[in-house]
């Protein structure tokens, strides 16, 4: 019987699909829990265009000759003119909240903006233009990226969840995974 419980727990912790608000098989509560950090719709979808900016916390890279795109984790995309790999030129920055990924083809750059997919016209990489927003294209999990923890249940009316912070809580929240 114990074996089955272990199996079940394993299955629950493996299934990132859902979180739980029932009170069975839940983990021990240690007085800490995760709280969602919300951002308003306007802030989330505020895309702005800038001249080249410094790299601070670079993430992924994508190459579409002669341009190289460097993700700035959670903040946007640097566009580099890499015509001369010995002397790459940092030409512009697209500020995209919640951006980590991108891909490009021809004159078009696709990027994530939290849950949305954006299409940019990069025919002139110094004058990038946002052409299209596809809402909820990249479903993001509405629970913290941790297991065997408690968290404040998400409230969509408060905006988009952009992060989770670990805080002390005197009362055990309903949600856990």
């Amino acid at each position, binding site marked *: 019987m114990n074996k089955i419980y272990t199996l079940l727990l394993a299955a629950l912790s493996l299934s990132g699909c859902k979180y739980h608000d029932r009170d069975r098989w839940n983990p021990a509560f240690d007085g800490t829990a995760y709280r969602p950090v919300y951002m308003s719709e306007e802030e989330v979808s505020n895309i702005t265009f800038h001249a080249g900016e410094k790299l601070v916390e*670079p993430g992924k*890279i*994508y190459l*579409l000759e002669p341009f190289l795109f460097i993700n700035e984790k959670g903040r946007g995309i640097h566009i580099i003119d890499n015509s001369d790999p010995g002397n790459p030129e940092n030409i512009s920055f697209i500020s995209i909240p919640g951006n980590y990924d991108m891909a490009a083809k021809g004159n*078009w750059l696709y990027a994530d903006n939290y849950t949305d*997919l954006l299409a940019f016209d990069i025919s002139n990489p110094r004058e990038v233009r946002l052409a299209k927003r596809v809402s909820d294209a990249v479903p993001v999990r509405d629970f913290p990226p941790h297991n065997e923890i408690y968290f404040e249940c998400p409230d969509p009316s408060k905006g988009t969840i952009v992060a989770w912070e670990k805080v002390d809580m005197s009362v055990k929240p309903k949600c856990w995974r």
Partner: protein
Amino acid sequence: MKKTLKLLFVLLVALTGCEADKSGTVDPQSGKGGSMARFAITGNSLYIVDDQSLHSYDISAPDNPQKSGSKSLGIGIETIFPYQNNLFIGAQDGMYIFNNADPSNPQLISKYQHVQSCDPVVVQDNYAYVTLRGGSTCRNGATTNSSLDVVDLSDLANPKILHTQNMLTPYGLGVSGKLLFVCDGTHGLKTFNIQNPQLPVFLSQNTSVDAYDVIVRNSRSLILIGKKGLYQFSFNEDKGDLTLLSQIPVQ
């Protein structure tokens, strides 16, 4: 027994619970991502993997991506690497191989199962090179071991492990002809000879960089990203020697 069945049922429900659907269109390659990518374009399809699913978008009208399909995979999906007519998807419990002849509805061919870890993949000819990174940032820290695996893809329906060797903290990787480049985090960039594609032989290590992901630009140069910034190197295909071309340091 009844209780057991009930529990098994709950287990099944817990394991499913994601959704799926279908439809769309296709063609050749465009830009090139690193092996850590969650976005990939082949032909007129943009693929996006989220934690659990593979989504397809038709971009034949490039300024107006249309969702053409979505497939529920499992959990802990991390990377997508398109190669020829297939998509190789790195998940925390294995590598999924899809045929994308119908880009709107990629068909699962097989899954190469491995221990719980973080694992980008690159492919060349009949071989996939996969790094498995253990440790606490990966699911449950189920494993602390990290490795570089070589998987035989000559029968896509039946991928087989050929070789494994220990790594420290491997992230992205890149392959070019006789050379395999592996980003080993703070341990730098490691270069392997894969003249025998089944057995990567360690050649050298560049510890001056913190290596997260790499794109092999052509058979002579590569682009590397890490905590300290962007680096470009030219390399000698026979010996694997790297020569720094340029860098854009973080500030």
